């Protein structure tokens, strides 16, 4: 019973981390209608930026926002040079190839500049554990959960309460209508892309200390994020959060009760099942182009 509760708590915390990656992915899909296969690379960039900033003397808590800014700056550069030209209103397979190639290029660039080996990302929370009511939680996990929830709540409020946020929602619901009502759609798309990859960078900065930084660290996370996002319905922010918790719990339960070595396949099996059985997602917003 205690093991079950411990597993459930771990799963929920894991889910909060996934939610951050997934919300970024879903915001980009909602407004740009592309699946960003480079999302995992921006996740890795977030972790490496944090690491390098810490080596340069930044304390962890300050390194996180600075790292997010770095990722956003890189994202902005890529957005203006590549994404904007290659992806908007182009055929879908072009966007898959370009974002995938982008992720390969970023990973290769990381290997060439920093090296292929895993590097620890220092965190003041270190290996400390918090004991509460008989359960042990790593302090870093608690911090990830708290930061994710805070950022996601802030983001939700920002989307609903500000003009820019409302415009993002408008574009994701009906780009043409938004254009006719005078919204600067290209600007909103660029902004959404930056927000999306910044979320991935933030997730990398938060999760980095737990798994260390390595060039392909984003792959596993982005795979889970695909599952989450598709489960929640592509483009649906609430769905992404709900999906993240479901997947977090599922992963934790599987790892504890079934098998650790097969856990990497679980994400894939889930994403396949979700796409085959319920492609419109749990929240039921049909988005899929099926024949």
């Amino acid at each position, binding site marked *: 019973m205690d093991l079950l509760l411990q597993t459930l708590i771990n799963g929920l915390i894991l889910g909060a981390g996934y939610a951050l990656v997934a919300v970024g992915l879903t915001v980009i899909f909602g407004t740009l209608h*592309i*699946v960003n*296969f480079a999302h995992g690379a921006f996740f890795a960039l977030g972790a490496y930026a944090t690491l390098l900033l810490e080596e340069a003397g930044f304390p962890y808590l300050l390194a996180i926002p600075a790292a997010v800014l770095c990722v956003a700056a890189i994202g902005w550069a890529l957005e203006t040079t*590549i994404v904007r*030209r*290659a992806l908007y209103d*182009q*055929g*879908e*397979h*072009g*966007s*898959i*190839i*370009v974002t*995938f*190639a*982008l992720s*390969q*290029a970023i*990973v*290769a*660039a990381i*290997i*060439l500049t920093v090296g292929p080996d895993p590097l620890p990302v220092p965190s003041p929370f270190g290996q400390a554990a918090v004991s509460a009511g008989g359960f042990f939680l790593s302090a870093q996990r608690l911090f990830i959960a708290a930061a994710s929830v805070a950022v996601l709540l802030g983001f939700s409020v920002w989307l609903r309460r500000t003009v820019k946020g409302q415009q993002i929602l408008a574009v994701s619901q009906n780009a043409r209508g938004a254009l006719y009502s005078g919204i600067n759609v290209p600007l909103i798309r660029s902004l959404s892309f930056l927000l999306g990859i910044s979320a991935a960078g933030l997730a990398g900065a938060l999760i980095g200390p737990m798994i260390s930084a390595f060039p392909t660290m984003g792959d596993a996370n982005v*795979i889970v994020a*695909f599952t989450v996002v*598709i489960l929640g319905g592509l483009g649906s922010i609430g769905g992404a959060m709900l999906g993240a918790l479901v997947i977090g719990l599922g992963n934790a339960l599987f790892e504890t009760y079934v098998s650790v*070595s*097969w856990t*990497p*396949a679980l*994400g*894939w*099996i889930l*994403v*396949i099942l979700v*796409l*085959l059985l319920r*492609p419109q997602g749990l929240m039921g917003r049909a988005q*899929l*182009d*099926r*024949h």
Partner: protein
Amino acid sequence: MTDITESAPGPRARGGSASLRGAGLMALGIAAVLAAGFGLDGDPFLLNLAGYTCGFALFALSVNVMLGGLGEVPLGHCMFYGLGAYAPAMTMHHLGLPYEAGVVIGMVVAAALAAPIGWLTLHLTGAYFSIVSWGLSGVAMVTALNLDVTGGPLGLFGFSRLAVGPFDLSQPATYFFVAAAVLLAVLALLYHIRSSRFGRAMEAIRQGPHLARSLGIDVFRERLKALVLSAPIAALAGALSLPYTQIVTPEVMSVLRTVDALLAALIGGVGLIFGPAVGAVIFTILPQFLDLDPNVKVLVFSLLIILVMVAAPGGLHQLWKAAAARLTHARKGDAS
């Protein structure tokens, strides 16, 4: 994106001359193979690499059946490549079967597996299809890592005899000629497919699935046929990599393998039959001669792809065509 003139001879290239052109291209291919084979004579390393390149070109062609044929990005195609490499390795290792039997088994299993996989997944298009495809290869890789028959993370190695009939593939020259012959045969097959009913249907579907359906094409069935056709070609490619690699590990199913093939197809041009093959040669031989670090290679080629997609979505040959058109245009301008 596809150069339709190849599948549908235009007014000036009616049926007869198209066949002639096909024969001419084939003769050119054979000449290139012979020249390369004897030109490299005595350099076992380069001959081995050339043999491997032929196998890789086969994989690029297989990927291009999906990419250039249907307009889908089959990220998980490496699964069939890996299956083709594992099949002879496993049958030789565990059953003592000859290599050729393993190759055939791998191709049959790949086609047999592609049918239900396609039946389940080809209702999906675009990014959804790519994700599911990637997912299946991820599952396949984890499976190969965890099973005993596949040798786990260490894989299988130490093969006794890699030969096709009397041809011993451990001889670099023989390996190259066999791989090149297989490549040319598949090229010839694809060339004829292009101008058959099936090839026409794929082209119509790629350009407009709804229009294709309204012209009487069973879109789902033709997409399924394309996958079932391309899977055994990928398996054959995987099997042909064995004499070069001498080992099969779960890494063979890494999505990077598919990405390499996609890059090769895009560099050469997805619409042209010979494009992916030429792209494969550029992609493997050039880095070898330039002595590129594998990561520099990935970086350079990824950026190249992005450049191609931004500037010329049909492949580099489109850039050349555009440049040529501009040149002739400029010349005409001078004349007048």
